[in-house]
Structures are given as C-alpha cells and as structure tokens.
C-alpha cells in the first residue's frame, strides 16, 4: 500500500507541476513566463482573406488571465503560416514553453470567444496583451528580431543593452 501511496503522490505532483506557471521575471512592463504545453497556443490570427494578411500571436494562461503576445507587425498570410510552422516545430514534443514580452496593455475582458483557438482559452475572464519578444523551449529559441535570442537582448529593449 505504501508503494501505491507514494506512486499516487508522485503522479499528482507531476500532474500539478506540468500545469504550473513559472514566472522567471516580471515587472509592470516585462514578463518572462513559462507554462505547460496545455496552457499554450500559437497561430496566425486575424487572417484577412481579402488582403491576405495576418499576425503571428501566442497565448499563455496564468490563473484566470490569458496572456496574448503579438508580433510588432502584420504580414502576408503565407509568410505568417511559414512562421507558424517554424514556431510549432519548436513546441513539438515539449512539455513547457517560455514566452517573453514587453509593454502590456491594461488587463481587459477576454476577447478570444470568436477566435479559432482551443476552448480552454476562451473560458478565462481576462486577457493581457504584450509585444512579443521571443519563445523558448528545450528545442530552441526563436524571436521577432534576428538577435532577439541573444542573452544581452533578454529585456527586449527595456534595459541598457551592450
């Protein structure tokens, strides 16, 4: 019985850990957040069929808030979809995803109800919008700017750079 008790505790602990949020760093203008795969999503949002434009966007759930990280600029949809593929490759077969963003909006009502995102992202009351800096997983790092994964660019422009 003791073995099964220990096993049960371990399973619960691992289950909780994989869903837990880790905040590496946070200020009123910066967030470095890691979430489980289940609490993460990315896609080319706002696909405009007429002008063939869309914007790369990323989502992470923390408590009852959905953090939305947006690219600084819109792009052609086929370009965005290529990027989407590259970012999804980084998040394949990993359990944790880390996102860095700056310059948030005020916390506001969740507006994802009409978006093609998994249902679990629609149920939370609030969302907060950030400027996307980079995404990291155990498979690598990819950023908006070419040098965005360099350690000296960690703060995304908010702190003195070398």
């Amino acid at each position, binding site marked *: 019985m003791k073995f099964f008790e220990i096993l049960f505790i371990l399973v619960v602990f691992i289950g909780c850990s994989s869903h837990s949020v880790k905040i590496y760093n946070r200020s009123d203008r910066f967030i470095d957040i890691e979430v489980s795969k289940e609490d993460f999503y990315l896609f080319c949002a706002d696909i405009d069929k007429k002008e063939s434009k869309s914007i790369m966007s990323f989502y992470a759930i923390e408590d009852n808030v959905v953090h939305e990280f947006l690219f*600084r600029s819109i792009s052609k949809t086929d370009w965005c979809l290529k990027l989407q593929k590259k970012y999804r490759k980084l998040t394949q077969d990993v359990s944790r995803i880390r996102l860095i963003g700056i310059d948030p909006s005020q916390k506001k009502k969740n507006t994802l109800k009409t978006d093609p995102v998994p249902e679990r992202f629609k149920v939370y009351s609030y969302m907060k919008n950030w400027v996307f800096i980079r995404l990291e997983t155990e498979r690598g790092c990819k950023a908006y700017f070419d040098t965005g994964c360099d350690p000296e660019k960690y703060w995304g422009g*908010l702190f003195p750079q070398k």
Partner: protein
Amino acid sequence: MTNKKQHPWRKCPIGEHWVREHERKIGVSEKNLDGVTIVEAHCRKNPSHHEIFVADELHEIAKKYFKNVKTMPKADKLGYPHGNDFDELIGGWTQFWNDIFNPKEPLDPNLIKVLIASESSFDVNISANSTIGKARGLIQVTEQTRKILTDQDGELKDFLITLSKKEFYDPNLNLAAGIRWLFHKQYLASHRLKREATWMEAIAEYKGILSQLGKVKRSDEIMQKLKERYKRLSTK
C-alpha cells in the same frame, strides 16, 4: 504638394546632387604614380531631375543644422533606456521633410518617437525578417522600401534616398529615409481614403494595417498602444 524651392539646408541647387569626395582610377603617370586621383566633393547634375540624397549629405545636414531645430519631440524616454537618444535627429528630419512636402498638418516629431518605440524599442542595430525583405534599424525600413527609395523609375516622384543596406543601421540615415517614407505613406493613405489622411492613419498605412482599423481587433490593439504613447508625449 512639394516645396520645390531649394531647401536652405541642402548643399546643392535643385536638379543636382551631392557627390562625396572619392578616388578615381586614372592612368599611371608622372603626376599620379599610383594611378589614382582624388575627386573633390561636388554637386553633380542629375539627369533624372529627381532630388537625390546620399549618406554624406544627410550627415552634413544633421551635423550643421539639427542643434537649432524648431520643434523637438518631448524628452520622455517612454520607459526605454535609449528613448531620448535620437530626439535631435527626430526633430531635425521631421522639420526637414515638413519643409519639403509642406503638408496641411505638419508631422509631429512625437509621432515619430512613438513609431520608433513600436518598431524597434529604440534599438539601432536591430533587424527582422518580413514579407518584403529585411526590416532594419530604428524605424525598421524594409529592403523593399530601400529599393523604392533609390529607384529613379519607381513609384516615388521625387526626393529619392540612395543608401546601402548597412547604412540603414545608422540612426541618422535611417530616420532621414524612414520619415521621408512616412510622407509617401501619408500620400498613399490619402489616396486610399479619398481624403487627406491624418498622420495616425499614415502610421497605420506604414504598418500595413490601415484597411483593418476598426475591423480587426489586433490591429486596433497595435494602434491603441501607439495612441496611448502619443497622448503621453503630447501632454505637458
């Protein structure tokens, strides 16, 4: 409508452009044993009749005239360590292009400052890939834009800027070109809207989202942040 009188800050008269001092290869002779002569900087007639700017002249203009610019952006870093580093360049090039194009509503240098914050977070050496080629420097001028700014047979009627890819990382050159490009975007936005576009609409056109405003929430979100920052800089 452009103001086709020669701008007092320009080195050359209308119809001519500045050629920097450079070396020219000539035959080896007693006078030129190494076969190279120095051509002094001069104004060269421009057969295309476009006004053309090159790096040397843009640097000369900034060096000579920007310390006494009339309207500077507000000295507010917007939370970025380098937020005030380019105020003189922003003020100078905004005044220059306002003088050239003489818009009904002059471009406010504060708008350029918030655009830089949005595009690059004031990082001079930054680049990003985009659908229309690499975007470089403070105002993230794309490769496609760089080519258009140089193209004497292209969509710009006048006031071309000829710069290399590397030169776009220079903040002075980047802003000279980027602000000139913004004036073109204002012209395009006005055409699209069939009325004089506001500068905020010109910025939306610069970001490729003018047609989405009021319809696409994430585009509105991007512009909302810009407007909030602009409001902050506009408040005394």
